[in-house]
């Protein structure tokens, strides 16, 4: 699925031309052929991640859309073939309205990733061990058939294939001792090598053509197969240099059946009900093995083994999950301009997961004896949850809207966890009763004060209380590694508010101003200790957007976002608070230069300055980065059907977090020709 097959694409492109050749057919379409590339100075992976374009260039059919319509038929064809960016789409839909349709297609795109890892500033240490130019390809193919009966009941069948294949960076970094006197630090890059596929089959029958009754029942079956590796390197350029490969080989079958029924009882009341039953069955596999190359076989005598090189192999097992969800909804209009929307939901979940594996460890030197032990893990989980919501809308005041909503969730369950050695010794034996209660209240209002002037405000308060009661726990109190039994209570609280003003003082001038505020607090309590406020997150976002057309031939636009965001914990003396502040924005303008020519100038910038060198106690943290991009675009509308576009861009990236390792300067050029027919 990953390789591009030009002949197949070309054949599929030509296919629609042979169809619908009747004389009463109207045809409309667009074809756009374009391409571009970059002259780059600096870090290639960072450039590709930023622009999501291949540095070496991309080009082809950017867009091909064809619509053919007759009295009885509709046909739409949509294609995109852009080698370089690995960006393809081929989709067609034949439709005889109210009779049947056929929808089929294939699409694929690449997501570029940067494999850069950590950087230790005091000794200027970083590692580049492999080509950090990483990318993942996402593919999707589908076939959908739909047929309508005489009373407009739709029978629908769909097959869908999804895949994710390639490499991407990981933030699970390897360790090094090559940071001078600072001991061991984890800054060595690692990467994922992913191979994921899903086949999904679904069947639905439903009717939503009637005003009084709507219904739908269906089933879905999917098969997902993961063959994912995470490749890590420990202590490169040292005698203890070794590679760790962690594999996840899981196969999951998921079956879900759903039903929905809605009935309009009278003009005042509409009720609906939904049900969803899900049955998941997974076969678990995987390993974590040390070796001299990626994907090794476990070797207890591996030459470079070190004490506490922990891992596992021959992981097998299965997971089963059965979930039932029911919900009931109503829309009730008690009086003119008032509507009430109550909903209730119930969820029942049973889950059982079992794993068996060979756990590996390495003893102390000089023998570095390998310790291999057969281990079994088991989890049983039960969960019941009720949720209720009530929404009230009022539209009785001219030029105003009001709505308010309450949402309540009550969940309770049990998690039973065991970890058993082959000798029968239970290293972990826990039985936890959990409850989770949450409530959320929101209020929203819009005021259209006058034509072109709108005020909008929203507020919500949300709180959640999680209680964990360890009925049985064999890990002794006062010792380590007691999660999750150690936490007995965790409370969340969030206040969120936003306010927006949209103002058009003149027909050619408009402003939008928005302010967002959020504050969340988490209070945690561990067994035998007093509760403590474990974090406070505060965020202020101020946004502004302006559009101005001083003359019909010229428009100017600008937007800016100023964000102050901090996640603070009482551990800030060790790890500092997490500042996530940034400013970004754009300026743009367009000008009708000649009878057929428009020019556009766009500038965008991003600036984050949160870097703090906390190397003595931890790693240096905080994103510090500056990006700027300027684009000059010339558009020539040669005729109503033919448009030429040429675009030049200059981009810069200055990445202080990595001391310039991800810096780049790039000149980009892009051109396209668009033809409407």
């Amino acid at each position: 699925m990953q390789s591009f097959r030009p002949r197949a694409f070309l054949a599929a492109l030509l296919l629609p031309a042979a169809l619908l050749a009747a004389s009463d057919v109207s045809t409309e379409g667009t074809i756009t052929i374009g391409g571009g590339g970059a002259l780059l100075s600096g870090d290639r992976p960072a450039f590709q991640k930023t622009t999501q374009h291949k540095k070496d260039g991309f080009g082809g059919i950017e867009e091909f859309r064809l619509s053919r319509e007759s009295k009885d038929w509709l046909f739409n064809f949509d294609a995109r073939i852009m080698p370089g960016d690995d960006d393809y789409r081929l989709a067609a839909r034949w439709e005889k309205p109210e009779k049947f349709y056929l929808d089929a297609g294939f699409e694929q795109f690449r997501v570029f990733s940067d494999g850069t890892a950590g950087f230790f500033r005091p000794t200027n240490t970083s590692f580049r061990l492999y080509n950090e130019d990483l990318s993942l390809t996402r593919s999707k193919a589908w076939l959908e058939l739909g047929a309508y009966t005489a009373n407009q009941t739709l029978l629908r069948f769909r097959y869908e294939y999804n895949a994710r294949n390639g490499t991407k960076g990981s933030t699970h970094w390897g360790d090094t001792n090559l940071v001078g006197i600072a001991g061991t630090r984890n800054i060595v890059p690692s990467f994922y090598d992913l191979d994921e596929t899903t086949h999904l089959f679904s069947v639905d029958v439903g009717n939503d053509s009637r005003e009084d009754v709507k219904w739908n029942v269906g089933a879905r079956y999917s098969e997902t197969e993961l063959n994912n590796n995470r490749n890590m390197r420990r202590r490169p350029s040292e005698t203890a240099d070794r590679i760790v490969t962690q594999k996840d080989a899981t196969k999951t079958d998921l079956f879900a059946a759903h039903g929905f029924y809605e009935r309009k009882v009278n003009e005042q009341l509409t009720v609906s009900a939904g049900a969803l039953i899900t049955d998941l069955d997974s076969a678990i596999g995987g390993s974590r093995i040390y070796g001299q190359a990626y994907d090794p076989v476990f070797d207890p005598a591996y030459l470079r083994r070190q004490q506490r090189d922990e891992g596992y192999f021959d992981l097998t097992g299965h997971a089963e999950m059965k979930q039932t969800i029911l919900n009931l909804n109503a829309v009730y209009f008690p009086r003119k301009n008032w509507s009430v929307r109550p909903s209730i939901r119930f969820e029942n979940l049973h889950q059982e997961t079992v794993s068996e594996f060979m756990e590996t460890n390495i003893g102390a030197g000089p023998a570095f004896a390998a310790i291999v032990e057969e281990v079994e893990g088991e989890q049983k989980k039960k969960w019941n949850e009720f949720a209720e919501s009530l929404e009230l809308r009022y539209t009785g005041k001219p030029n105003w809207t009001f709505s308010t909503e309450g949402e309540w969730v009550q969940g309770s369950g049990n998690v039973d966890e065991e970890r058993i050695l082959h000798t029968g010794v239970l290293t972990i034996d826990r039985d936890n009763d959990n409850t989770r209660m949450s409530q959320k209240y929101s209020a929203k209002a819009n005021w259209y004060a006058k034509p072109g002037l709108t005020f909008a405000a929203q507020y919500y308060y949300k709180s959640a209380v999680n209680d964990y009661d360890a009925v049985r726990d064999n890990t002794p109190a006062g010792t380590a590694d007691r999660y999750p039994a150690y936490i007995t209570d965790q409370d969340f609280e969030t206040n969120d508010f936003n306010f927006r003003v949209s103002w058009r003082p003149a027909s050619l001038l408009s402003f939008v101003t928005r302010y967002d505020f959020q504050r969340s607090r988490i209070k945690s309590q561990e067994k035998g200790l007093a509760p403590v406020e474990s974090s406070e997150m505060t965020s202020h976002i101020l946004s502004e957007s302006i559009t101005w057309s001083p003359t019909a031939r010229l428009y100017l636009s600008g937007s800016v976002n100023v964000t102050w965001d901090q996640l603070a914990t009482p551990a800030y003396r060790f790890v500092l608070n997490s500042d996530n502040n940034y400013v970004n924005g754009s300026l743009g303008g367009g000008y009708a230069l000649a009878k057929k020519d428009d020019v556009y100038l766009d500038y965008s910038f991003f600036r984050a300055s949160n870097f703090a060198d906390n190397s003595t106690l931890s790693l240096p943290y905080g994103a510090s980065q500056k990006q700027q991009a300027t684009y000059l675009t010339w558009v020539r509308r040669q005729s109503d059907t033919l448009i030429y576009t040429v675009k030049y861009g200059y981009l810069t990236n200055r990445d202080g977090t990595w001391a310039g390792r991800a810096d780049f300067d790039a000149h980009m050029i892009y051109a396209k020709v668009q033809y409407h027919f």
Partner: protein
Amino acid sequence: MTNRFHRFKNTLLFGGAALWGLVLVSCVVVNRAVIMPPNVPGATFVGSKECTECHQSITAGFADATHARLRAPGENAKNVGCESCHGPGSIHAKKGSGHTNIVNPGRNPETCFQCHLDKRGEFALPHTHPSGKVTCSDCHDPHKGDAIMGGGAKLAGANETCLKCHSAQRGPYVFEHEALRDNCTTCHNPHGTVNDKMLKARNQTLCLQCHFQQQTATGQLMIGGRDHAAFVQRGTCWSAGCHEAVHGSHVNSSLRF
């Protein structure tokens, strides 16, 4: 260096003068409006009623949608409707169809950003879903029901929106991470952040927001009954090799790997 600077200055002066000349000439000979994207050249507003003629399957369910709350009675709000997001529809309606004569926010989120300015800023950050490949409508339905598709009293669970693409994180695991019971957004902001993997924090505070323990002695950083003061030197909880299985583990209850 000086020569380079002079060359740049001369280019700038020459280029600027040429551009200014072009603008002056064009002022005399051109008399038409520039096309401001996203927009439909020459189109005017026709009202939502026109849209229901062909798109009844979409408009029929709109009354229940989150965005239906924006509709109000009164003269000042009469233009609020389909064209608020899809642009003026006169040409599209007259022609009866067409993809170049109507704005499609499903392909270009700029329409959504007109009100959701904060999200425009987040989507422009260095770490976000790939631009143009994952758009607002992949996770939010603007035409039907709640725009936030899962959670609360809705049929779908809160995490289903994420798991439909990120199947490797679905589990279930022998040793699960309780944070996933709440929501993926406990740790990630799907609209974009300044941190890799769209994490809400780049350092240990991401984990400590829930896992901080009341301290019983100075100089210690007790978490889960163990002093972590020395461990946090090596890196973050998940990057330092200690708790890599952040989404759950089949082998280790401390989510080591």
